[in-house]
């Protein structure tokens, strides 16, 4: 019975270690993505899609801060869920804004084409 208890404790420790490692991996990869995003701004700023990608990648870096928050401050489950959902909502706002902007550009192009035809 005692051995079973130790085994259970061992698995819990391994699980916790793995969980911490996965958060660490997300932090490292997210930081890398954030740095790369800042370096590519000169390329991305040229197109709407590029600007959308840039914004989303930046938001991905904000998620890194969220992961750090999970690791360091051990956020309560409801707080973490609210924060995560807030960031996902921001993600959609960015994309909708960019799609709207792209559609405006497309309609302007269409209007110019028709102007040339007449």
């Amino acid at each position, binding site marked *: 019975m005692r051995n079973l208890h130790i085994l259970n404790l061992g698995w819990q420790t391994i699980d916790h270690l793995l969980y911490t490692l996965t958060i660490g991996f997300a932090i490292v990869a*997210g930081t*890398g993505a954030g740095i790369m995003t800042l370096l*590519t701004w000169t*390329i991305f700023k040229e197109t709407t899609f590029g600007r959308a*990608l840039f914004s*989303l990648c930046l938001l991905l870096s904000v998620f890194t801060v969220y992961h750090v928050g999970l690791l360091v401050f051990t956020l309560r489950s409801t707080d973490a869920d609210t924060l995560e959902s807030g960031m*996902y909502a921001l993600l959609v706002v960015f994309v909708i804004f960019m799609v709207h902007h792209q559609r405006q550009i497309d309609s302007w192009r269409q209007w110019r084409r028709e102007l040339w035809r007449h």
Partner: protein
Amino acid sequence: MAALNAFTAFDLAMGMISGLGLLYLLYVEEYVLSYRRFLLVTTAGLLVFGVGGPLFDIFDPKYVHVVHGVGALLVVLGMYDPIHHELRREDWADLLSENPAELRHSANWMVPMDDEILAVFHSADLVLTPMIVAYNTGLSRSEVNRRLLAMKSHGVVERVDRGKYRLTPLGEQYLQGERSAAALAEPTDAAI
């Protein structure tokens, strides 16, 4: 499988909407074709992050951070290509440092005024006399003359005529921060 609560359902819906929006933008942007290869990898990373994250939150929350990490890693891989091809070495230097001199490796025989003198040669890209260099740097002519002789003996500048100097390829490489201090330490054969 974890319970589908309001938060995970909301995250999944948001992730799917943003994923669809991203695919739409990728479809309509015709003039970014040349970058499409890396854009696809970056977009895949964002989709993994935006859609995969909430999906794993529902099915196996233990691995949600792994999914976030993989998404970010794909973004890094996708971004490597444009950075590798578009940003030149000087841009990197500008990004890393306000003052490119911080990236240079000065030899022991060099003094700070050497950088000022070489900068004049670099900006003019001409054959210059010590007097013109002194006029442009605010240093005395004798000082400039002395330093030019020292730099000439180490191959950083060369004398093309009596009292006329120009930057050598070694000097140019030093200014760009591409030469180590060891390469500048030995006097050149011409000076011996």
